């Protein structure tokens, strides 16, 4: 059995719950383990429920998992919220028996098979260390001591983080570590089976949060203008990009609203710069008219939508994937957009680069969909090879004054009708033959034109650009067939996108271990809909399960709208409670469907 341990720190915002998770994550990573962290901030600025859940393993981690092995409850609310998840075999470390604000039903829990340890973290921090602020360090130290984390690793992390604040601060935290460790040594008898094995060979990794990965990816892709307006949960993309972009010669611009952001990146793209914005659902709605304009003027722009629960103001910090319709079809008229979605933090990084490459190649807006939960998920990912990324960047085909012969000029047009629909690009200060890009229907030379013939030709040209997107971008379709042979029928097929895909992947893995044959597809390309791949998938099973965190199930309906997959094969599984799926749910659903099949 692979080593797989999940520790959840939970408590009130402001008590260092989130830092505890971050420290633990870095410590685990420095021990050579794979790490994925999920965190949730309170909706309020002060107080409220916060959590940080760290999952560590010696194998690649696909998702959050179904729950935790160890819960470190800083307060009563953390205990109450997580009580249903304290199943047999889990561990509860609680702030007690004195000094905390609650007392768990110890007898009830122990009868269920939960291991309960009381560690008076508040009391120790206040009385023994003399600083309540070190409560989370006491809690971490106790946790590390109980489960066999080398304490030096925690002390290393503390030194790294606090040495800038001076020796006194570092020593205070070391005192807290000692206090926590000693409390466990002197007062607690370990009765649970969990233990972190020895260190593994250290990996060459960096730790990134979802939105941080997007920012770093954009910088690697060469973004020069990032214009955005603050909106939860997308604001941090700009926060993370701000310091980096100055080093790469670009600028993060806060505009007066989302409409302005979108207009600005159209202007900057027109002037030749790689341009991007990041927003959430409400901002995407405001940007629709201008996304159409980018499409009509064939300007490369990247729009990141970090989805949140809607509609309207909805639940700003909660998980949902219900913006696909808006991202793909939200403009008036028939425009061209490409919509892609990463499924984990590593893909947040690489797909952002891909978004730029696609927008430069096809000269249109590329919308990348992530979500609030993924934005806060942290992973240790192999350090990217920036040099290789830069060598493979795609740039729009700019006509340069010095490269064009005067006799060639007469036949060069901004919206030239070509076989693949892609036209040369003219940029101010660089190109000859200035033109005015217009949102009006236009001729090859950009002049406004509304004759039926020219309109039809130009519309065909724009759609021709994206006619073969699926075939030309096979790397955006992730097949997960296990050991299914060519022509072999699977028990069931599954399609999932975004964060749901990585959760589904874990469920599929577990079911395969139990002997089930599953054909899974995790499309990163959502629109234009990858018709061929979906039809191929449909031929492998009698049912296709499409789990989506939205009421309507956007991608399932896209399959029905845009492919020849027989509609009766599609089984939608929709949740809209503001939380991601857990693998167990998808596992159970598949068993329900496959079970039904074998009983029939």
């Amino acid at each position, binding site marked *: 059995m692979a080593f797989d341990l999940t520790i959840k720190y939970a408590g009130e915002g402001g008590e260092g719950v989130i830092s505890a998770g971050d420290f633990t*994550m*870095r410590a685990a990573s*420095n021990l050579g383990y794979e790490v994925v962290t999920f965190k949730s901030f309170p909706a309020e600025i002060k107080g409220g429920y916060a959590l940080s859940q760290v999952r560590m393993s010696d194998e690649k981690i696909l998702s959050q998992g179904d729950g935790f092995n160890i819960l470190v409850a800083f307060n009563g609310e953390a205990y109450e919220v997580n009580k249903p998840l304290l199943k047999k075999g889990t561990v509860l470390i609680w702030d007690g028996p004195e000094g905390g604000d609650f007392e768990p039903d110890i007898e009830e829990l122990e009868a269920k098979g939960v291991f309960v340890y009381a560690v008076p973290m508040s009391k120790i921090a206040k009385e023994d260390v003399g600083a309540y602020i070190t409560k989370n360090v006491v809690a971490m130290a106790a946790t590390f001591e109980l489960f066999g984390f080398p304490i030096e690793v925690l002390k290393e992390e503390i030194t790294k983080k606090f040495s800038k604040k001076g020796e006194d601060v570092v020593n205070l935290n070391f005192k807290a570590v000692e206090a926590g460790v000693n409390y466990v040594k002197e007062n607690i008898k370990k009765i649970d089976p969990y233990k972190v094995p020895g260190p593994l060979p250290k990996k060459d*990794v*960096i*730790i*990134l949060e979802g939105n*941080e990965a997007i920012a*770093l990816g954009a*910088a690697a892709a060469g973004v*020069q*203008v990032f*214009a955005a307006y603050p909106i939860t949960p997308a604001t941090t993309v700009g926060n993370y990009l701000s310091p*980096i972009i*100055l*080093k*790469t*010669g670009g*600028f993060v*611009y806060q*505009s*007066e*609203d989302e*409409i*302005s952001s979108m*207009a*600005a*990146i*159209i*202007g*900057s*793209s*027109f*002037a*030749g*710069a790689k*341009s991007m914005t990041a927003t959430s659902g409400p901002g995407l709605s405001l940007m629709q*008219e*201008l996304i159409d*304009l980018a499409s009509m*003027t064939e300007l490369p722009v990247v729009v990141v939508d970090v989805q949140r629960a809607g509609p309207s103001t909805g639940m700003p910090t909660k998980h949902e994937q219900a913006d696909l319709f808006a991202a793909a079809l939200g403009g008036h008229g028939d425009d061209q957009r490409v919509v892609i979605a990463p499924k984990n933090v590593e893909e947040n990084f690489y797909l952002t680069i891909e978004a730029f490459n696609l927008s430069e190649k096809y000269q249109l807006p590329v919308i990348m969909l992530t979500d609030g939960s993924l934005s806060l998920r942290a992973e*240790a990912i192999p*350090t*990217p090879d*920036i*040099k290789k990324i*830069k060598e493979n960047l795609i740039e729009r085909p700019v006509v340069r*004054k010095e490269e064009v012969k005067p006799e060639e000029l007469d036949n060069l047009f901004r919206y030239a009708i070509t076989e693949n629909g892609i036209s040369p690009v003219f*940029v*101010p*200060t660089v190109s*000859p*033959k*200035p*033109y*005015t*890009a217009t*949102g009006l229907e236009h001729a090859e030379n950009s*002049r*406004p034109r509304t004759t039926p013939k020219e309109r039809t030709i130009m519309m065909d040209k724009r759609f021709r650009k994206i006619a073969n997107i699926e075939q030309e971008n096979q790397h955006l379709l992730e097949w997960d067939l296990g050991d299914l042979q060519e022509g072999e029928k699977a028990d069931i097929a599954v399609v999932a996108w975004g964060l749901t895909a990585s959760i589904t992947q874990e469920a599929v893995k577990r079911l395969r271990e139990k002997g089930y044959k599953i054909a899974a597809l995790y499309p990163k390309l959502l629109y234009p809909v990858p018709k061929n791949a979906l039809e191929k998938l449909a031929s492998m099973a009698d049912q296709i399960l499409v789990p989506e965190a939205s009421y309507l199930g956007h991608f399932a309906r896209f399959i029905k709208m845009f492919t020849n997959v027989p509609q009766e094969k599609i089984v939608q599984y929709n949740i809209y409670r503001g939380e991601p799926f857990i693998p167990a749910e998808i596992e159970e659903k598949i068993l329900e469907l496959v079970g039904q099949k074998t009983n029939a």
Partner: protein
Amino acid sequence: MMEYIKLEEKLPPKEYRSDIEPTWCPGCGDFGVVTALTKAFSEEKFDPTAITMTSGIGCSSRLPLWMNAFGIHTAHGRALPAAVGVRLAKPETPTIVTAGDGDIFSIGMEHFPHTARKNFNITLVVMDNRMYALTKNQTSPTSRHGYKGSLNPYGNIEDPFNTIKFAIASGATFVAQSYSGNPKHLADTIQAAVEHKGFSFVNVLSPCPTFNKIDTFKYYKGRLIDINKELGHDPSDMKAALELASHVLDADNPELEDAEPFKGKRPIGIFYKVEKETFEERIAKLKEKFAPKDGKEPDWDEILSKYRP
């Protein structure tokens, strides 16, 4: 900082015209603005492949199409933020925004005060015909009280917006009004606006002969007063500028026919002009501090090291 790309030799003004035939009505006031712009570009020795214009939607927003320059004909009200994008990407391109009173002061109003406040180096030329022409005669925020538009055929029950005062209050560092029926004044004013380093706003009274039968060339004849030449106004004086600006719309009101300072006339001229650091200059300072020199790649090992566990 921020040197515009210029030519060695002047190009004649007609070289700044594209070969696209304007679709404006004969007698449209906006033709005067085209003439003045080509003259200004010629005087400034701008390279046509370096100029970038932006516009919104409306008759006057079609202007960039008639020019031999790069341009973006954007969405209604969005000319200014698109121009901001141009400034962020390529500050060396002279950036001129041409749009109408409805485009900038109705739907585009959210963008105007911010762009002015930030003092982006943009020249905004508004062609003010005091109504919406392309959609066939509706009132705009600058329409006279009582003006009959298609949606209020009983007469406009609103009072117009004082865009000159608003521009000064928003922090615009060059605020002027001119008239498309006075080619010399218009050309001089637009050239001064283009030369000004910062946000320049020129409101051009520009009659629509097809729909607006009140604010016509005939009406404006003899009814304009040059605040610099005739009243000796010093544009560097903010207090005086605001005082004058407060009376810009007095001539709408017959009861103020004899009132100071304009005595029933409409003011043209430069109300306010001040030198102030532009947004682009401030960005340049930040980049000076942090950006790699000569466009070289930054130290990616250093950047990545911050993310190591």
